[in-house]
């Protein structure tokens, strides 16, 4: 029985496809609304080699750009704010308030600022992701083991060396939690923006357009592509984390 353990995750996928196929064969759902798994897979395969593939890359590009901007701002700022608990407490409310504000509510404001285009999509996503990363980095720094900081100090580390050599590394596990949450949020914002904010491409646009044209196999294909992207990004960060923050949780 133990031999099938590695295949357990596939079991659920097989079951889902089986139920889907069963529903199609027995006409439980209108075939126009629910094409067969094979039809959808074909649309996905064909799409990724053409228009859908292009949209996929556009969404990746925007998400990566937004998370890069968010990281560049949030990580140094988080370390700075987190290094003084009193400093962080004085801005905590602002961070928590805007962190709790749905990023999508910021679209109109950013549209005014940046107009209709990539800039708005990327900056709203970056804004949302930034706060999530900032909050996690700051907490990572604030929860740095006091003994470790003291040990570095006792061994003659300067303030800057403690900050860059100890605090930064101490906060890394929590920083990665922030990055993973941030990238998920950024993807959500980007896809929504691609649907409604005058977009010509991207996965959000693809899903929306397919639905407008009632091209259901293509719509499902775009949804799966978006899912794969989200899962892939998360997995990528997990692998990077395991490689570079090998000590997390140990």
């Amino acid at each position, binding site marked *: 029985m133990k031999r099938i353990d590695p295949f357990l995750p596939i079991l659920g996928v097989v079951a889902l496809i089986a139920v889907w196929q069963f529903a199609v064969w027995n006409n439980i759902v209108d075939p126009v609304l629910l094409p067969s798994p094979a039809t959808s897979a074909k649309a996905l395969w064909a799409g990724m080699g053409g228009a859908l593939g292009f949209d996929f890359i556009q969404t990746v590009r925007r998400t990566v750009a937004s998370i890069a901007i968010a990281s560049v701002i949030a990580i140094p700022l988080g370390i700075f704010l987190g290094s003084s608990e009193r400093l962080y407490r004085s801005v905590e409310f602002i961070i928590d308030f805007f962190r709790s504000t749905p990023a999508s509510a910021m679209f109109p404001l950013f549209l005014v600022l940046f107009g209709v285009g990539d800039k708005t999509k990327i900056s709203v996503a970056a804004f949302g992701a930034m706060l999530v990363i900032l909050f996690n980095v700051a907490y990572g720094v604030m929860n740095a083991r006091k003994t470790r900081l003291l040990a570095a100090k006792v*061994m003659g580390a300067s303030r800057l060396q403690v900050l860059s050599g100890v605090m930064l590394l101490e906060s890394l596990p929590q920083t990665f939690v922030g990055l993973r949450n941030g990238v998920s949020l950024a993807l959500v914002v980007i896809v929504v923006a691609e649907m409604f904010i005058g977009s010509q491409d991207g996965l959000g646009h693809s899903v929306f357009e397919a639905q407008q044209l009632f091209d259901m196999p293509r719509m499902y294909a775009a949804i799966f592509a978006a899912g794969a992207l989200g899962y892939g990004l998360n997995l990528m960060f997990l692998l990077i984390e395991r490689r570079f923050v090998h*000590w997390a949780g*140990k």
Partner: protein
Amino acid sequence: MNAGAVSSLALRTDSVAAPVAAESARPHITIRGLSKRFDKAVIYDRFDFDIPRGKLISVFGPNGCGKSTLINMVAGLIPPDEGQILFDGMLLNEIKFGYVFQNYREALFPWLRAFDNIAYPLKMMNVPKRERSARVEKLVAHLGVKLDLNRYPYEMSGGQQQLVSIMRALVVEPEVLFLDEPFSALDYEMTLFMRDQLQRIFMETKTTTVLVSHDLEEAVYLADYVLLLSRHPARVSDFVAFDAERPRSDATLSELDFVRVKAHCLDVFQREVRKA
């Protein structure tokens, strides 16, 4: 020596100033007028003490009397409210010293391999990389430590991690070594092993060592002198010499001299505890 020290007739309670040898006659560390309070509790009130050179001093006393506070102030981890601590007339930042924390898990850097953990203080002293490696290698060979230093601390047992901590403190060739209850987080078997490791290191290096312990057997077993503190505000209850030959072993624990010194320390300790 401190005026508060109690002399015992049954035991030779050395005065620090006593000429043990010409070289070590001058105290290594002089503590003068040390005062410290936490909120309302006065932990130290104009505390004076001399720590002799090249000896291993165990600090023992009732809970919360300020054992750790003492070495933390001497090692500069906590600033004293008042007073002066000099090392051969020099300030702390003019000398090299090592400090071993009780909590090795939180004191080592998990992102560095054991080897780089040990080399870390040298890096902070701007020693070039090649020389850092050479000095760590030298220390390892000198101590005869059989450890895979390419592993990360979390891949090691508690005792091995604490051994790495001690080596990290020793690599700078410190003039003074401070240890704050270094073995209290280890199981008994490992504690026994580590005691002998520390004793061996001390015999090899003859570094002035200040060890805080909450285990009287350990305090006496390892010590040249046991510094017994009173309840806070801490005073010197007694400063007891134990001069059994090194290396000491399990047999030492049942020797008459050891039993007498330990009984005397316990007696002083109990008197202090009952005073409350």
